[in-house]
């Protein structure tokens, strides 16, 4: 544990920081030893010490990161980031726009120029740097998890065990790929010798969302850096802090200046500047389908940069009567409510086979009513606030439309009276396919439960959407499982589980849920150009 580094980021102005450090150390130790329960207790103590957190001075985390240096915005503008659990401001952050993107692209282009340190580096050394980055994230994971929860509102335990682990594992996984991205030699016709090289694309623009700020940063940086690209990355304006901290770790790990540049800012300014920049060779975006269209349009209008998109979903979760009932209820619950419902993979259309429908609704409501909503730093909290006031009112508006269109509100439906952007766990039954809540992505803690009779019917209804990101099937019948999963138009189909994502498996969308795949070996494809080299030779031999 490197305390110097740690205190670099945590201001010691408050004596509470000392308590925090001790707890950080103990919690990390317990997690390493798999002493989850002990970690829980410690987090409870952490909770009481968190009164000091608003006093934290988030040194360095409010600047723009270009060329391994911290910059003010060219315009001098700043924006505020808020704690969604209280609505209070955490700090001001420098607001990047077009002029800053220009600076960052220049840095990234220089870092990518032929003969640069980055271009001449052994692939295995790139992997080494990524691996080191993973170790640094692991070292600072308690701090990062705290910051992530503070900025997004997600429960601390979730941040620590899901987000941080996912981030570390993703960096490690792509670290391993760096020197395994093979081209091929090809038996061409005629007296020629052909080989392919998988080369980096160049400067990659990456725009990440606010629902999993760290994990999405890792999903983007991992493959881009593994393949040898340079990056201009814009985190979401709602949640810029942890991503900027990664910038500090990138520098500490020893990536050459300009390889990664991080620009906090807004979509219509900084995001648009990236998508339409003539000096950016590829753009990867994760966010809404609506913005995804703008990105592709900007790419088309500018320099035909390569585009990968991970967009929205309205994911069907199909429960057959023969399923393990307990498992299905719990997984369907987690499938939609996890992360306050703010997942592109949320299983937001639950299709339940007729014979078990009533019971399934009853049990799901029971489970939703038990869901604890509250302070993200309370270890018993399952659900924190929505990320912003805007998201909160959008979710409440969709809930209202459900009621108006005649779905049956089983529980929840309101914002609790406390401050912060919370929404009660909400369950609708008797939902019809044409209702807005069955068609639009709600991105909140709202579960829609529908009834179906036959396999053919449910497949057709499940596929009848513009989206195709994920889906799930619960059944103990292998045939049903395989037939339904083969028929669903979705990039991922889970069988008897939900949200079982891992960095080894590709993830992405059919139809309007996106373009391309992230993670897995296939994720590398999105960050490489294949060059075919054919050479004339005499005297062909097999």
């Amino acid at each position, binding site marked *: 544990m490197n305390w110097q580094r740690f205190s670099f980021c945590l201001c010691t102005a408050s004596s509470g920081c000392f308590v925090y450090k001790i707890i950080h150390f103990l919690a990390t130790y317990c997690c390493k030893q798999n002493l989850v329960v002990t970690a829980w207790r410690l987090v409870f103590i952490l909770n009481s010490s968190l009164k000091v957190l608003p006093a934290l001075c988030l040194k360095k985390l409010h600047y723009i990161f270009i060329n391994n240096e911290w910059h003010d915005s060219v315009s001098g503008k700043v924006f505020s980031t808020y704690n969604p659990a209280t609505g209070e401001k955490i700090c001001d952050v420098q607001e990047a726009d077009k002029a800053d993107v220009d600076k960052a692209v220049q840095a990234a282009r220089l870092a990518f120029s032929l003969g640069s340190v980055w271009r001449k580096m*052994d*692939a*295995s050394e790139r*992997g*080494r740097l990524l*691996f080191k980055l993973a170790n640094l994230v692991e070292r600072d994971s308690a701090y990062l998890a705290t910051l992530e929860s503070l900025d997004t509102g997600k429960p601390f335990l979730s941040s620590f065990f899901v987000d941080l682990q996912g981030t570390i*594992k993703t960096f*490690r*996984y792509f*670290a*391993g*790929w*760096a*020197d*395994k991205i*093979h081209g091929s030699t090809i038996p061409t016709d005629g007296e020629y*010798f052909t080989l392919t090289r998988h080369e980096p694309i160049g400067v990659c623009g990456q725009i990440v969302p606010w629902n999993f700020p760290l994990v999405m940063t890792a999903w983007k940086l991992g493959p881009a850096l593994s393949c040898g690209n340079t990056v201009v990355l814009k985190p979401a304006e709602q949640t810029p802090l942890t991503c900027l901290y990664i910038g500090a770790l990138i520098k500490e790990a020893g990536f050459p200046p300009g390889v990664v540049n991080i620009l906090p800012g807004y979509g219509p300014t900084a995001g648009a500047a990236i998508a339409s920049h003539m000096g950016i060779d590829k753009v990867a975006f994760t966010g809404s389908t609506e913005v995804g269209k703008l990105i592709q349009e900007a790419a088309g209008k500018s320099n035909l940069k390569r585009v990968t998109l991970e967009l929205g979903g309205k994911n069907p979760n199909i429960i057959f009567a023969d399923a393990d009932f307990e498992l299905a209820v719990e997984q369907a619950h987690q499938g939609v409510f996890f992360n306050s419902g703010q997942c592109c993979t949320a299983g937001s259309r639950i299709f339940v086979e007729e014979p078990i429908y009533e019971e399934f609704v009853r049990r799901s409501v029971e489970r939703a009513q038990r869901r604890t909503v509250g302070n993200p730093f309370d270890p018993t909290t399952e659900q924190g606030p929505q990320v912003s006031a805007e998201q909160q009112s959008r979710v409440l508006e969709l809930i209202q439309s459900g009621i108006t269109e005649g779905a049956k509100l089983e529980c929840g439906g309101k914002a609790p009276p406390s401050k912060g952007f919370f929404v009660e766990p909400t369950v609708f039954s008797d939902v019809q396919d044409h209702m807005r809540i069955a068609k639009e992505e709600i991105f909140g803690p709202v579960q829609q439960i529908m009834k179906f009779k036959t396999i053919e019917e449910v497949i057709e209804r499940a596929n009848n959407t513009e989206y195709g990101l994920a889906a799930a099937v619960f059944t103990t019948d*292998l*045939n049903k499982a*395989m*037939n339904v999963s*083969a028929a669903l138009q979705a990039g991922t189909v889970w069988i008897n589980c939900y949200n079982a994502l891992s*960095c*080894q498996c590709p993830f992405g969308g059919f139809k309007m849920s996106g373009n391309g795949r992230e993670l897995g*070996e296939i994720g590398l494809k999105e960050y490489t150009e294949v060059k075919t080299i054919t*050479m004339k*030779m*005499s*005297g062909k*031999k097999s």
Partner: protein
Amino acid sequence: MLRTVFSRPFPQVFRISACQHSTIPAPNVHPDVHYNKIFINNEWHDAVSKKKFPTINPATGEVICHVAEGDKADVEKAVKAAKDAFKLGSPWRRMDASHRGLLLSRLADCIERDAAYLAELETLDNGKPYAVSYTVDVPMVVKCLRYYAGWADKWEGKTIPIDGDYFCYTRHEPIGVCGQIIPWNFPLLMQAWKLGPVLATGNTVVMKVAEQTPLTALYVASLIKEVGFPAGVVNIVPGMGPTAGAAIASHMDVDKVAFTGSTEVGHLIMKASSTSNLKKVTLELGGKSPNIVLSDANMEEAVEQSHFALFFNQGQCCCAGSRTYVQESIYDEFVERSVERAKKRIVGDPFNFNTEQGPQVDEEQFQKILGYISSGKREGAKLMCGGGPAADRGYFIQPTIFGDVKDDMTIAREEIFGPVMQILKFKSLEEVIERANDSKYGLAAAVFTKNIDKAHYISNGLRAGTVWINCYDVFGVQAPFGGYKASGIGRELGEYGLDNYTEVKTMPSRLS
């Protein structure tokens, strides 16, 4: 051998300059030996027979220490431990692949931490120059383990569109208990080449290390325990080939055996497999690798590389370029310059930073090489330099060059495994390809030319597992290595190396 990765900090490993010395820590020339027993189940055991054997410092001929001598009974214990560790439901079998990778990566970190000590011990036991142990052997070990750490969770099966109402996929499963028998010329590195892929793919291991050089491998065993591999996953038995080695090769519960060593013993391994349980066999064996220098080559570069190709590691490389074919028009000049270079080669105390060449590994090798040198003289090759011992104690041999070597001479056909260079003359490309291929071996080869067509023509025509163009002994852990013909079966390193340790399970299921 194995220069590549260090070509930047140490552009010429075999001639490390004064300024580079400063980056190498001064060695302790008497490193302590911490481990000299048999490593089974993450514990240290005496031999069942209580026997011990001495391991010698080849630079002085003195005994370093005595090491527990494993034989059949100890192999039996080790196999049982490895089999238990491989049981369904064991911690090792239930471990996430990514965690296997993490353990391998931590092992690499520990070896990096103890690099100076391991390099000292390697030099003490093997005789290779410390500067080489430290800048070549140990870093390559670290890189190898890190490389295979990355593969652990990337070794993917496939789903396959078979005909009919079936759904079909493959799983890449570990083979089981793998016997691994490694040589003395690169004790640490050969251990890493074996452990990297076998552990990345989830097997368990019974490894026999060479009796000449058991010490560094046993220290690595202690690191295996330190980083947290479950007990029984790696078991290391120092011992002799005819006892411990044979017990592994013929054991009914060993599912696979991998051997690196001589072609002669390779035959025995394969025979033992066939008379026992048909265990899978991979072999990395001898070579008599042709190094072809065309008249248009960069002379200086070709002379230096050819010198390195043969003399590196005291000539104790299976891929040594021991048949140097030089085109007629440059033959005389090439021989002259090679002799000049060989005479400059510094032979001596392996702990001295200026030393390019240490002793041969033991008395037996020393005598065998001297025997080959006499046969060369007897059969009419022209001794250009060297030809005898280079010191009055230790197993040092002078850098030796023979000119006017003919293809049918013993020194042109058999693997000498010592600092003895054979230079042969050729006229045409067709001729040299035919002569180069006229060997039972097919491990490596090289061609030096500036002409791209000739480079391709020759490299495609050669029957060898590796062909270097305008370079020699360039090894990357990412690139496969192995032999055609009697030089071996299978490939180590790279993605190909994973095949050796994998059973593919095909799983079609009926869909209605």
